[in-house]
C-alpha cells in the first residue's frame, strides 16, 4: 500500500501551496494519474481521505484525471491506447510495449 505515502505526498504539496497562498481551506485537489504509474486509483482514493485528516484539506475532493498509456506497433505501425505495459497489437497480433502513462502529478488545487 504505497498509495498511503503517495496520498500523504499529494496532501503535503497541496497544503504547502495553499498556505503560501494564505488560503484557509482546500476544497479539491486535481491529480493526473497515468495508467502505468503503479498507483491503484481506488487505493489512492481510499488513502486520500485519511491523509487529509487534520489538515486544511480535510474533506477535500480528489479529482483524478486518468491518462492512458500509448502503444505503437513496431511491426504495422498501428497506434492504440492501453493500460497494460505489454500488449498484443489488435491489428497484426505482434507484441507491443506501451510508452508513457507514468504521470503522477498534482495539477491544481481549489481553495477558499
Amino acid at each position, binding site marked *: *500500500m*504505497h498509495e498511503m*505515502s*503517495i496520498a*500523504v*505526498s*499529494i*496532501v*503535503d*504539496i*497541496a497544503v504547502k*501551496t*495553499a*498556505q503560501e*497562498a*494564505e*488560503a484557509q481551506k482546500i*476544497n*479539491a485537489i486535481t*491529480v493526473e494519474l497515468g495508467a*502505468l504509474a*503503479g*498507483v491503484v486509483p481506488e487505493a489512492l482514493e481510499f488513502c486520500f481521505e485519511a*491523509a487529509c*485528516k*487534520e*489538515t*486544511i484539506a480535510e474533506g477535500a475532493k480528489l479529482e483524478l484525471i486518468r491518462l492512458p498509456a500509448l502503444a505503437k506497433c513496431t511491426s504495422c505501425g498501428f497506434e492504440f491506447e492501453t493500460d497494460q*505495459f*505489454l500488449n498484443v497489437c489488435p491489428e497484426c497480433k505482434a*507484441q507491443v*510495449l506501451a510508452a508513457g502513462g507514468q504521470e*503522477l*502529478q*498534482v*495539477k*491544481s*488545487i*481549489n*481553495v*477558499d
Partner: protein
Amino acid sequence: MCDTCGCGEHEDKITYQRPGQTSHSHTHTHGNHEHTHEHNHDHDHEHDHNHNHDHTHPHDHDHGKTIQIETDVMQKNNLLAERNRGFFEARNILTLNLVSSPGSGKTTLLEKTIQQLKDEINFYVIEGDQQTLRDAERINAVGAPVIQVNTGNGCHLDASMINHAVKELNPAANSVLLIENVGNLVCPSLFDLGEAHKVVIISVTEGDDKPLKYPTMFRNSDICIINKIDLLPYVDFDVQVCKEYALQVNRRLQFFELSASKGEGTEAWFKWLKERLHSE
C-alpha cells in the same frame, strides 16, 4: 517504549537500529500538521466566474480559487534520492538496491557475498523490514556494519529513510552499500533511493511468469538474479522462459543465475561486483 525520548511504539513510526544497540533512533511522519495563521489583510482573490448573473455578494466562496501546481508527486523523494546519489558518487560508494518478493533469498545472497568478498571489499548494509532485527543480526554475524530500518506498516524504503540510515551508518569511501528493500515486488519499484543499480531477485520456487505479472519492477531494474537454481530439478520453472519474459519488459537486463545457499553460479556475480566497484 523508546529509550531515547520515552515515546511509545507506534506501528506507523520508522525505527533505525543497529544490532547490539539498546536504543534506536526514529523518524515520525508529520504530514498532517495544521497551522492556523491569524492575519488581517485584503485578499487579492482572483475570481473567474464563467457565468453571467449578478452577484449580490462580493465573494462566492462556493467556487473557491484554483491554483495551478503541476508538481510531480514523487518530486520530494526523487530530489532526496539525487542527494543520496551525489553523496555515494563523491565517496565512490557502489550502492545496490535489492528488491524481490519475500523469501527469494536476498539476505542469504548478502551473507554469502559478504563472507566471500569481505577481505577485498568494505561492505555496509541497510536492512529494510516491517518488523524485527532478524536480518540485521544475520548480516552482523558475518561481520558487516549494518543498520535495520523497520518501516512499521510501510511496504517500501524511501529516499529519506536511506538518508537517515546512511548518516548513522557512515559508510567509508570506496565501499559497497547493499540495501535490502522490504520484500515486495510492487511498491519498492516506484521509490528511487539514490542507488547505482536496482537488482531484482527472483527464485525458481516462484513462477517463471513473474516478469510479466510485475513488469514495473523488472522494467526499473538493471540486474536480475535468478536464485535457488539448485532446486530447478524439483520445480516447474523454465529459466529461459523467465529470461525471455523479463527481456520483453526490459531489454537492458543483465542476468545472473545462481544458488546463494549452495554457491553454484555465484562466481560471476562476485566478479561483476568487484569490477563494477573498481570501474567507478
